[in-house]
């Protein structure tokens, strides 16, 4: 069986960059969104689904950690009919105009 892009245990890699990193507001908001959607009250997303979404991203290697989370949440919410691709696209455009 071929390994997925996420299955990197044992692969060759360079030294570990040990510098500490304070999570940005973007990262904290994505983390909060994902956790709210998976909490007892909402139960819209399960951790296994979040991982499946992350691991299915063709651009996995080019995204930062929480970018993967965000894209996975978007995929899952579309699958479940909570968000529609068109309304997300329309809102993105509207925000861009708003901020001009």
């Amino acid at each position, binding site marked *: 069986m071929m390994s997925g892009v*996420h*299955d*990197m*245990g*044992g*692969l*060759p*890699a*360079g*030294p*570990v*960059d*040990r*510098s*500490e*990193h304070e*999570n*940005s507001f*973007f*990262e*904290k*908001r*994505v*983390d*909060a*969104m994902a*956790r*709210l*959607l*998976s*909490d*007892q009250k*909402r139960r*819209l997303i399960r*951790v*296994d689904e979040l*991982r499946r979404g*992350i691991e299915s991203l063709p651009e996995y*290697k*080019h995204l*930062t*950690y*929480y*970018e993967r989370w*965000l*894209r996975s*949440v*978007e995929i899952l*919410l579309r699958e479940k009919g*909570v*968000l529609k691709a068109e*309304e*997300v696209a329309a*809102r*993105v455009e509207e*925000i*861009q105009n708003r901020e001009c």
Partner: protein
Amino acid sequence: MSHTQTHGHGHPHDPIEDNPDVRPEHLLLEQAMRELLIEKGVFSAADITRQIEDMDAITPAQGSTFVAKYWTDPEFRKAAQKDGKAAAESMGIDMSVAPELVILENTPEVHHVVVCTLCSCYPRAVLGLPPAWYKSVEYRSRCVNDPRGVLKEFGLDLPEDVDIRVADSTADMRYLVVPLQPEGSAGMPEEQLAELVTRDSMIGVSQAKPVG
């Protein structure tokens, strides 16, 4: 996260891979999704704020207290070995959304180190959010086949006769390392012991701080 992804291709990285910043399109996407979910009543802006505050409030200090209690309280140690999650709960740590927690006790002969090769599973209910390096390609890849080398990079040079055991976390199973209790710390009060227990020592990439 701000780590640099290296793929061993031996030349400077292209700007996208090397850029620690989030792409503008994803900042917009997050805002759009957040606004729509609030409008649909899935959650409120206050829910987001509270979640962030709750997560910020979880620091490795919780784990340090857990370890200090483990060192000093034989009953607690027994309970924690049996069921780490229940033991954490008994200390008032919120484990309501946490998966199972397995305690890995270091001994002079056996040292444990924790990784998640597939993603970033981490005992966040006890330690908070993982450090960036824990989520990095380099740590995830090498921890399982070159743990001694990885630990050396963290400044931990273990004698050859110490057995290193690597625990690979899963979505349903998290690990907390109980480091060796430092020499000369026996009899110290729990609060002082807890100050010796660092985040890294509970992941297994370092020892607890020496006394004094």
